[in-house]
C-alpha cells in the first residue's frame, strides 16, 4: 500500500498493524533523544489548504523523529495565490523529488484526486467533511491503551456528525474493531442519510451516557447557528454539551475524548476537559506516534512497504453492503 486515504483501505489487519507499530514508536518517543533513522533520506511534504495546528505539527514532528526531511507548503504564501491549480501544485512539488504528500483540503475527495495525479505516497490529513484517517487511528490507539481493545465497547459520538471528517473516519474504524457506536446529535447535525452506517442514532444524550464506555465529543462551530442548524450554542450546550452534571451519568470507568481544538463551555464544560477520565491530551501525544507508524509503514521498508496487499476497496464493516446503499468501506485507494 502506497497511500493512506481512508481507514477503510487498511482493513482490520491494517489497523492492527498500525497499532503494533505505534507501540514501538511510543517507546521511541519516550527516549531522551526521541529520534530513529528509519526514514533518513526521505522527504515528507505537508500540503495544507486548510488551517491546522495539531495535525500539521504532529505529522512534521513524526517525520522528524523518523529522521525524514520535512517541508511545509504554506498555501497562503505560494503560487496558489497566483492562481496555480491544485494539480499543477502537486506535480510541481512532486517533481522536486519527494516521497510523501500529507494533504489537507476543505473539499472532500482531494487526497484521492491528488493520488491519481502523483506517483509518491499520499496521506489524507483531512478532506472536507469526509475522512481523517490518522485521527481515527490515534483515537483507536488511545482507547486501546486504556481498555485493551475496542471489541464490545459502547462509544457515543456526540455532536456535529454531519460536517465531521473525524466522525466519518471514527465510525469506520471503531466499528471495524468491534465497538458499538451511537451517534448523538440534533437531526440537523446528522448526515441526511445514515443508510449503511453501522451505528445507532439518538437525540437524547442523557439516556446514552449511562451505557457509554467512551464519550467522543465533536467540535461545535459557531457558524452552525447562522445556517439554521441550531437556535443557539447555548441551547446546544444545554441539550448536547458534556456538562459537569452530565458527567455524573457516566459509568465510573468511562472515557472522555475530543479531537480538538475544544470549545470549553460549548461541547465540553471547562473542568470536564481536565478530568482524569479525559484523554484529550493523551490523544495528542499518541497522535505523533501513530503518524510515525503510518509514515514508517508507507515509506520505510522498500518500494511496497509492509502494508502491501491491501489495495482497493475493503469490505464494509457493517455487512450491509448492497447494490444501492453506500457500503461503509466503499472508497477505493488509487495507491
Amino acid at each position, binding site marked *: 500500500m502506497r497511500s493512506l486515504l481512508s481507514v477503510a483501505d487498511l482493513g482490520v489487519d491494517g489497523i492492527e498493524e498500525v497499532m503494533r507499530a505505534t507501540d514501538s514508536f511510543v517507546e521511541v518517543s519516550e527516549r531522551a533523544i526521541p529520534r530513529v533513522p528509519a526514514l533518513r533520506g526521505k522527504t515528507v511534504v505537508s500540503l495544507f489548504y486548510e488551517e491546522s495546528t495539531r495535525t500539521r505539527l504532529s505529522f512534521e514532528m513524526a517525520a522528524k523523529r523518523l529522521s525524514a526531511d520535512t517541508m511545509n507548503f504554506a498555501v497562503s504564501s505560494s503560487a496558489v495565490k497566483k492562481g496555480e491549480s491544485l494539480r499543477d501544485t502537486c506535480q510541481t512539488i512532486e517533481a522536486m523529488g519527494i516521497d510523501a504528500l500529507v494533504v489537507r483540503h476543505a473539499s*472532500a475527495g482531494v487526497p484521492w484526486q491528488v493520488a491519481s495525479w502523483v506517483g509518491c505516497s499520499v496521506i489524507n490529513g483531512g478532506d*472536507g467533511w469526509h475522512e481523517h484517517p490518522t485521527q481515527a487511528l490515534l483515537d483507536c490507539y488511545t482507547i486501546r491503551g486504556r481498555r485493551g481493545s475496542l471489541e464490545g465497547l459502547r462509544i457515543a459520538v456526540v455532536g456535529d456528525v454531519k460536517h465531521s471528517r473525524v466522525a466519518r473516519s471514527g465510525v469506520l474504524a471503531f466499528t471495524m474493531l468491534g465497538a458499538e457506536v451511537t451517534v448523538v446529535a440534533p437531526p440537523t447535525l446528522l448526515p441526511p442519510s445514515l443508510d449503511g452506517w453501522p451505528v445507532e442514532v439518538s437525540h437524547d444524550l442523557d439516556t446514552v451516557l449511562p451505557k457509554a464506555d467512551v464519550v467522543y465529543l465533536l467540535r461545535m462551530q459557531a457558524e452552525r447557528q447562522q445556517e439554521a442548524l441550531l437556535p443557539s450554542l447555548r441551547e446546544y450546550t444545554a441539550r448536547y454539551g458534556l456538562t459537569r452534571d452530565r458527567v455524573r451519568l457516566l459509568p465510573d470507568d468511562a472515557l472522555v475524548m475530543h479531537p480538538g481544538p475544544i470549545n470549553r463551555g460549548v461541547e465540553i464544560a471547562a473542568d470536564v476537559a481536565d478530568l482524569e477520565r479525559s484523554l484529550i491530551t493523551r490523544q495528542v501525544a499518541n497522535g505523533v506516534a501513530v503518524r510515525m507508524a503510518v509514515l514508517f509503514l508507507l515509506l520505510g521498508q522498500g518500494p511496497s512497504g509492509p502494508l502491501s496487499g491491501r489495495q482497493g476497496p475493503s469490505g464494509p464493516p457493517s455487512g450491509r453492503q448492497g447494490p444501492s446503499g453506500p457500503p461503509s468501506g466503499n472508497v477505493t485507494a488509487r495507491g
Partner: protein
Amino acid sequence: MVDVTGSRRADVLVSDGRIAAVGDGLDAREVLDAGGCIVAPGLVDLHTHLRQPGREEAETVETGARAAALGGYTAVVAMPNTDPPLDTAAAVREVLDLGVKAVCDVRVAGAITKGRAGRELAPLGEMADLGVRLFTDDGAGVQDGRLMRRALEYASALGVTLAQHCEDSVLAAGGHMHEGAWSSRLGIPGMPAEAEEVMVARDIALARLTGGRVHFLHLSTAGSVAAVRAAKAEGLDVTAEAAPHHFTLTDAAVASYDTVFKVNPPLRTPADVEAVKAGLADGTIDAIATDHAPHAPEHKEVPFDEARPGMLGLETALSLALTELELPVTAVLALLSWQPARIAGIDSSHGGPLGPGRPANLCVFDASTSWVVDPAALASRSRNTPYAGRAMTGKVRHTVLRGEPVVVDGEAQR
C-alpha cells in the same frame, strides 16, 4: 427505414436537399450504403451547450455541431447560458449566423430573463421574431414565481414554450451532488431531490394558472416524473425531457471523486433512474435531451466542490438510448427525433416523416455495432465524457443534413 409512420424496408432517394422518393430499387449518382442499418429522421437535441460565445476553449458552434452530426443529430437547440448570455435578438443572431456553416442545424433557445438573472423579462418577442421557439434560463431556474407567471402569460401570445431548469436555488444551495446515502458517506454537500421537485410542482401550478406551455428540462427524480405524469393526466400543456446520464448512471459513481460525474441536476439513486426510464416508456417524458455540457480541463481537474457541473452527451446518446431503455427502436427514435422536433417547433423540417418533399435530414445507424468510448477520439473540443472506456452498442454510420452527407461511414465530412 423507421419514422413516425412505422418501419419498412426501402431506399430513400434524395435530391436538392429533399427526399425525392422512397421505394425499392431506387438509384442515384452517389449511394450511401445503409445495409444492416436503420434509416431514420435525423435526431433532434433540445438541450445542447455550444459554449459560444465566451467559452470557445470548451466548445464552439462548429465543433459542437460536428459532435452532434457524428451522434446522428441533424438539429440542436443551443442553450443561452453563454457569456454574454443569449438574451437579446443580436446575441441570438450571432449564434444563428455561426450555425449557418455548421454540419448540423443550429437553433437557439433564448433566455427568459435579462442576463439570466431572474429579475426582468428578456425581449421574448424580438427573439421569437428570429425564430426562437424555446426560452429558458437553463443553468438556473426562474426562482421568482410571479415573474415566471408573467413570462408564461406573455409567452402564450407568442406561441413559444418556456423551458425550466427546475431547481430551488435556496434548497439546493451549496450542494455538489444528490443528497442521500452516498453524499452522506462521501462528505460532499448534497442537494435534495425536493429542490427539483418543488419547482416542478410550482410550474405545474403556474401552467394551470396561466394556460401557458411549460417544458421541463432534464427531469431526474422519481417525484418529478410522477408530478409531470399527473399534470399530463390533468390535460395541462406540459412536456418533459430526460438526459441519458439520468437513465444510465447513479450517484454511486461519485464515490470515485472523479469530477466528470459532477452534473446538474446531479446523478440520482437507482430508484430515480428506474422512474426516469418508466417515464420515458409511458410517454410522461417526451424527449431524450443530452444536456451536452463541455468543460475545459481546468474547470474539471479541480476539487469536486469547485468543478463545473456538466458532461458531454451528443456522441453517446443514441447508443445509450438503444441499450439502456429496453424500448423498441421506434419508441427510442420518437424520444430522440420527432417528439423533440415538435417541442422545438421545428417539426416542419426535422423529425420526419420520411416522405417525398420532406427536407432530407436523416440519420443512418447500425443498432448492433459495438464500440468503446475514447475521449480523445470525440469530436467535441472537450473530453469530459463519463463513459470513457465504456463499451457501447449502436453506432451512427451516416448523417445527412439538408441532403448533404455530413457524416459518411462514421467520419465527419467537414
